[in-house]
């Protein structure tokens, strides 16, 4: 069971500030999601190796080459705040 405390913990790790109302709401929603997924526990997985992917594809790699498809200016356009070519972010507390 997900508790309000779990939600507070996860929110803190994600640097999210939640209102009391939101905490209640997300506790219920996350709980429902987990419960839904829990149905899979009923499947007998004896002898089945854990897998990280549904596709049977391995070794997808590229050669070690430097390629730039965008300029710095194009990439910085989306920065909410910029200073002297740096991304400017709130003070790290």
């Amino acid at each position, binding site marked *: 069971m997900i508790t309000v405390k779990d939600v507070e913990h996860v929110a803190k790790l994600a640097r999210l500030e939640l209102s009391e109302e939101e905490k209640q709401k997300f506790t219920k929603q996350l709980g429902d999601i987990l419960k839904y997924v829990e149905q899979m526990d009923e499947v007998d997985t004896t002898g089945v190796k854990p897998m*990280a992917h549904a596709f049977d594809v391995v070794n997808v790699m590229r050669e070690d080459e430097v390629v730039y498809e965008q300029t710095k200016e194009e990439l910085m356009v989306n920065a909410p705040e910029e200073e002297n070519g740096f991304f400017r972010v709130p003070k790290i507390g």
Partner: protein
Amino acid sequence: METREKYEVVIGLEVHAQLKTKSKIFAPDGTEFGNEQNTQISPITLGMPGVLPVLNKRVVDMAILTGLALDSTIPSRCKFDRKQYFYPDLPKGYQISQYDEPICVGGHLDIAGKRIGITRAHLEEDAGKLVHAGSNGISGSNYSLVDLNRAGTPLLEIVSEPDMRSSDEAKAYVEELRNILRYIGVCDGNLEEGSLRCDANISVMLKGATEFGTRAEIKNVNSFRSLQRAIEYEIERQIELVEEGERVVQETRLWDDNLGETRSMRGKEDAHDYRYFPEPDLMPLEISQEWIDTIKATMPELPAAKRARYMSLGLNEYDAGIIVEQMELALFFDKIIELGANVKTSINFLMGEIAAYLKDEKLGISETKLTPENLVELVNLIEKGTISNNIGKQIIFTMLKDGTNASQIVEKQGLSQISDEGALKEIVQKIVSSNPEQVNAYKSGKIQLFGFFVGQVMKESKGRANPKTVNELLKEMLD
């Protein structure tokens, strides 16, 4: 008994080695050090929605090579995982790393007769750099500036077993690991520039205890000197706590090189909860024996083998160690051996005049004008008796400075050795007859005066006299 001696120190190290690739581990941006901020970025590095990382093959090759050099097992299968943490140095909100299936498992490294176990080595991406504006240090800043050039640089994190028992052993381990990484060409090993970074896990326990004490992890150590200082400080701090009946807290501590102390980075309530899970954007790696064999075939001579070979050529352990420690010098020396020069004479130059020159001028051997071929020619001139050792020691400095070859200097300055007996006899005769007092003293038993006569002859001949012939002639004339 001193308090310190009652305790056993246990040290394990986590070394992050930046792999020397051209591009990043999952993105095609460049990896050069010191470029203008945010010029080595791409949508992948910025964590834009919808982008996909693609693994750099060279990174895998380098990790396999490193694993082989450390006698690790390369599992036939490994995968990548997401390590979640929210900090602006990685815009995605997670770092791609390897959690439970690393690329290298086990292994070891030997330092001065002691074997240090390697637990594992895994691949991950480096984070960007934060510049804290507005004030000095994190606490006083008003905001932070982010440079993501380094974000995504490939790192191989090499984790040791807690096998080290002193700061000296820890230093020796990092030095040898750095040597290996540099010789196999996967990492610059520059602690100051951060291409090699080191975190130390340290605990203390009473001697004879069977259980390790609680450990603290020390970060921000960026030189061999601060590594040792940080460990020494931390040992003292922990022993003091234990002696006072207090407990060591498991935590991450930051080394402050200016203050010479470690301090707590984050409290227990802020302890990291990384919530690892398999990276869905990257497919697993399957590494075949064939792939491993291909990499193994490229393995150069490792530092330990090089030291052993040098010692078999007649170098003492100290000299062999010094040469191997400086890869440039070792490769230079290898070339000299290959060209067939006398090893002892060559090493005397390398460890003597050349080492002194490099130290004074703060240069690496490749930054001088001296080539292996030129040094070999000089050594051969001495071996053949064309010039004396002393003349050689004088002209080596000219060769280092302007790249002239030895025979040119010898010819131009008329420095060739006088081995002709007739010519030398004349000089010896002159010295003997102009120092009758010393001759008498010598003859009456003050045999240590022999050196005086040799010196006078050498001086008279401007260092060109063949010392062996001079010795023979003097003996003939005086005895």
